[in-house]
């Protein structure tokens, strides 16, 4: 598993976390840069040109949301937020200003690598493939066809739009607000029941068991994610 030559910036004020990430990422073939606060992180993005950034939410000089917001003024670098449990509101804020994904501490390296591959895939393949497939789910975006376990599934236009947005961002968490805005449009950000009802219907149609979904995963308090492994 070697990502050969990809550059990653680790931003965390805890030395132990930086050291552990440095070791693990280097072992996986990444070139690792480190920053201990927000200002250093912004400098390093300019100087070291990293391909991806791992950013702690709680930094001594500014919080991760602010770092993300400032970066997004001029950079599209993929950002993965590191947070602890019970920071749902902060996570949502960071995602809404443009962070790509988040991981809740403590986490395993395997999980981190999977998230990194998902966000980096967007850099490698900026255009979504016309046909998306994961496990038994096939979504043909060109022909608006959805097949599960080799059977065609009939979706309403809204359900299809919802699935399409999830597929385009496969593997990445989308907040309730992002989904409502992308599927229903501006002004629907507070209509969370629309989202809940359509997610529920979509699960009835594509999941084997809605209570233990394989594809559409709930990120409690944050949003939803289409499970996808690169």
């Amino acid at each position, binding site marked *: 598993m070697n990502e050969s030559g990809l550059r990653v910036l680790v931003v965390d004020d805890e030395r132990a976390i930086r050291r552990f990430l440095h070791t693990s990422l280097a072992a996986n073939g990444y070139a690792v840069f480190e920053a201990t606060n927000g200002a250093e992180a912004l400098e390093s993005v300019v100087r070291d040109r990293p391909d991806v950034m791992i950013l702690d939410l709680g930094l001594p000089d500014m919080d991760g949301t602010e770092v993300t917001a400032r970066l997004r003024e001029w950079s599209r670098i993929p950002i993965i937020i590191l947070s602890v449990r*019970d920071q749902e509101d902060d996570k949502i804020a960071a995602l809404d200003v443009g962070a790509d994904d988040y991981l809740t501490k403590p986490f395993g390296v395997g999980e981190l690598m999977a998230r990194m591959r998902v966000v980096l895939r967007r850099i490698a393949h900026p255009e979504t493939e016309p046909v998306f497939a994961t496990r038994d789910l096939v979504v043909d975006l060109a022909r608006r066809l959805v097949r599960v376990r080799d059977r065609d599934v009939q979706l309403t236009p809204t359900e299809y739009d919802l699935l399409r947005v999830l597929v385009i961002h496969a593997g990445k968490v989308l907040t309730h607000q992002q989904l409502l805005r992308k599927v229903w449009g501006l002004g629907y950000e507070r209509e969370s029941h629309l989202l*809940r009802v359509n997610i529920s219907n979509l699960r009835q149609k594509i999941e084997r068991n809605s*209570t233990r979904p394989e594809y559409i995963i709930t990120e409690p*308090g944050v949003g939803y994610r289409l499970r996808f492994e690169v």
Partner: protein
Amino acid sequence: MMYNSTMNSDDRPLRREQTELRNGRAAPRVHRWLPFVYGIGLVAVTTLLGLPLRSFIDPTNLVMLYLLAVVLAALWLGRYPAVLVSLVSVLAFDLVFVQPYHTFAVADAQFVLTFIALLSVGLLISTLTAQACEQANAARDQATHTRTLYELSRDLTMVLDPADVARTVMNHIDRVFRGEAVVLLANGRSLEPALDSPGYDLDIDERDAAAWAYRQGQLAGRCTEALSEIKGTYLPLSSTQGVVGVLGLQSVGQASPLTPEQWRLLGAFASLTAQALTRIDLTREARQAQLLRESEKLQAALLNSISHDLRTPLASITGALSSLRDDAAYLDETARMLLVNTAWEQADRLDDFVGNLLDMTRLEAGVRKIQPELCDVQDLVGVALERLGDRLEGRDIVLEVPDTLPPVPMDLPLMAQALVNMLDNALKYAPPGRPITVKAEAAGPELHLAVIDEGPGIPEEDTMRIFDKFYRVQRSAEVPGIGLGLPISKGIVEAHGGCIWAANQAGQGAAFTIVLPILEGTE
């Protein structure tokens, strides 16, 4: 005691009016000379009544009419008007009924004896009758006084709050004295009203007087010896615990100065108020001491639990790591994996414990507010199972969660944690290989969500205590984790307005049930 000095200064002008005290209330200001005018009128009426009889009744017998007038005057008008009536009667009798008429000259010397008799009997009767009247009035005032105090003290025993004490006292003062009152309590370095009283003018001078009364423990303000030029009168509220506050009065005794009786009544009011405030204080202190004892007990339990439940996984982790570091040369691949997996599992457990500890603290401190949103029950169960992840490996989970259930308002991350803790509990206690059932059903306005295991069940006496903090059924030392999961589930569910209970199944095993309210018409 301390009211005496002030009372004496007001004593002399007041004593004359003592007979005016009715129902312990300041009597309206009556013209002092009016009873005397009535007395003279009474004598005039008596004389007019006697006039037609003068020619055929012996004058000495007509004296009886005047004696009747004296008795009536003593009864109705009081002592001094009655004395006046006696004197005027003698003069009127002489003038009208003793020959020669219409002159004070007396023809028959025997009438001098009649005059003396009429005067002395008149004076005696007026004194005796007036005394009887005064005693009756005093007794009535005393009874009123006692009843008033009884009513205040009865009302004060019911209240549990300084503001309610103030409200009660203000009501009583308004009823009894027809005036505005305020109860000021020491708050740090300043005196603040226990309750707003809009009619009371509490300006800086009034506050100064109140503060003086509080510091000195003496009366201040109007009608007292200190700072008497202001509107209000301030009585210190003294009890065994010292001065606890100040009672302020305005427009009390405005019409006429307060009588000594009324001062005594006010003093008693102040003393009852002070007692009530002290009682509330002492009750509160006792309750705090009780809470403190309980929280100390809880802290001891917490420390025990932390030393055990943090150190055990930590010991496994450091042990495994030290072995990997020091004995790397002797370890084969299998042994190494075993050590690594042990450390990983224990770290996972540690994270769980810290997470629960934080959840509990945040919920109890009110830092984490419940943010309910409508959620599907299937989603809730799914999130909980997802969070348990590897811990479910090899476990048969039976789901009875129909997709027809209505959505339920809940804080999903928290409620999922509540369910995780319940499932985790079932995983710990039920033997591996036996299924765990998650069953949800709507029962009227409630959702019932149960986690049912086929383990040994719960001892009957533990079904309630199992939700107490740090309580763990002492059945097996093998079962890891502390009794923190279920209490947190309980805290989360109760914060949602629901409840949680444990019961044994008819066959075998235990069922833990969450009940949540389903709000109708929220969509």
